[in-house]
């Protein structure tokens, strides 16, 4: 499949990014800020523990679109994406099929998106925060505070280089 230069304004998220925002109680802020659609799969929802009710409520309200992985496809997904969890695998497959952007902080998932879809299809927690600052939904200082909170309250995992890059981009906004 040839990657489209400009992906659809739809993001499908795996658990890594959701855990950051749900864990810090800022998930609603993301939903309010983002103009496109946010999609998740049921396997990803199954991974969420902390503040799951916020995600469930957003799904019920229609602000997050839920996709069910057909039961008879689970086996194929697990075998084809043996280096991933079912949640991540289902998210990556849908993104590839539909040409959606993928929201993930995971290195293996990022590698997959970059090589199979193109870097333009990748969004990380840092990208989302920068977008919110760019749109005037979040102040720069609060964006940095939020990273600290994600770090301590949600065990946000990121390479140090990406954090440096985030700060640089944040300053330039």
């Amino acid at each position, binding site marked *: 499949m040839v990657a489209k230069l400009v992906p659809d304004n739809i993001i499908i998220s*795996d*658990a*890594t990014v959701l*855990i950051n925002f749900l864990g810090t109680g800022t998930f609603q802020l993301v939903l309010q800020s983002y103009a496109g659609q946010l999609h998740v*799969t*049921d*396997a990803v*929802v*199954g*991974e969420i*523990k*902390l503040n799951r009710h916020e995600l469930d409520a957003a799904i019920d309200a229609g602000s997050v679109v839920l996709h*069910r*992985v057909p*039961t*008879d496809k*689970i*086996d194929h997904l*697990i*075998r084809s994406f*043996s*280096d*991933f*969890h*079912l*949640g*991540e695998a*289902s998210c990556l497959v849908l993104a590839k099929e539909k040409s959606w952007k993928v929201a993930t902080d*995971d*290195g*293996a*998932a*990022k*590698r997959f998106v*970059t090589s199979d879809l193109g870097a333009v299809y990748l969004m990380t927690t840092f990208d989302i925060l920068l977008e919110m600052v760019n749109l005037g939904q979040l102040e720069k200082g609060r964006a940095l505070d939020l990273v600290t909170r994600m770090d301590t309250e*949600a*065990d946000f*995992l*990121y*390479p*140090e*280089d*990406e954090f440096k890059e985030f700060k640089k981009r944040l300053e330039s906004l």
Partner: protein
Amino acid sequence: MTPTTDAYPKHIGERIRSARVDLRLTQDQLAELVRLPRPSISNIESGNRAVDSMELVQIARSLKKPISFFLEIPIEQIQDEPLTILCRSDDVSETDKAAVDDFVSLSKDYSSLENLLELHNSALLPCTGAPIKSKPDAILQGQRAAVQLRHHFMIGEAPVLDLDNVLEQRGVKVVERSLPNSKVCGFSVTSADFGHAIFVNSHRTRERRLFTLAHELGHLTMDRDHTTTLLTDKQEQVSLAEVRANTFAASFLMPDVAVTETLLKLGVTKGKKETINAVTIDYVRKQFGVSYDAMLWRLVNLNVITKKEREEFLPYAVEDALPSSETGPSLPERYRALAVEAYRRAKISIGKLADLLRVDTYEARKLVKQFGIQQSPT
């Protein structure tokens, strides 16, 4: 909406049941953990109701198994699988079968990690056995094989109290699991999928566990075309292969020279009963990590004491302690290290790491954070 069972792999329900039994949970307890009605669990296990992805993720998390575990066909149903025979043994209970399922799943994951990290660490052990002609021949073969394997491992004559680590470093997978009500002490398997692997029931004394490990190592090295063996509490030395494996274990754990040297340092002279006493024997057996009884037999075989003297010393045996507390299923340390390394190199995702470590994504994140692990840049 309840998922239909059309085109649904029926064995998923059986695997859920196996994993639940392995953790000794009731259907009620599992239902509570995954917030489903108890009849739903019953229907899922019997294949009358399919699980959806969300439920499967939650069930896997609650039962501390990777999702891939639930997609595999139970060992008992695979005709060509050597452990199938073991599972059909009268000595193997339902709980034991569940432990065998988990053992196989873990060994496969272990092997996948080694391949992913290009470690190629699953080299087969040297095969030193030959057809056994008689009981003396079985004993002689066991003794020789023990000497040869110690030489192969380059571990000299010293006691090997950490045999599990020694084996792990040489590509033999060692899985321990507590089976309190089981007759099973351990079993071993040589598989095309994952090489050599040994299971040890950790609900035994430390000394018994070490001997079981060495006994199974004996089977792995001496039984040509070894597929699987089972060691139980009630097992008598019915076959010459068992005699050979036991001799191997005794010789491997208590090398002739090392035992003799240890005794000499205590002033014990062969054939002079007055120079040896129960305290000496207890001290020596602790040096080698074996039971009092195992050391007595070794002393008989090394002609330090006679069989009659053995019987005289027997009443002074100190009972070895069972593990003080029952812990949950534990993972081999090397396996855990490999899983984290695969994550660090971004060869697996954080969700997969959680799967491999039998924890949820939150716990995996916490662990990675705790050790300051950062994934390689993409």
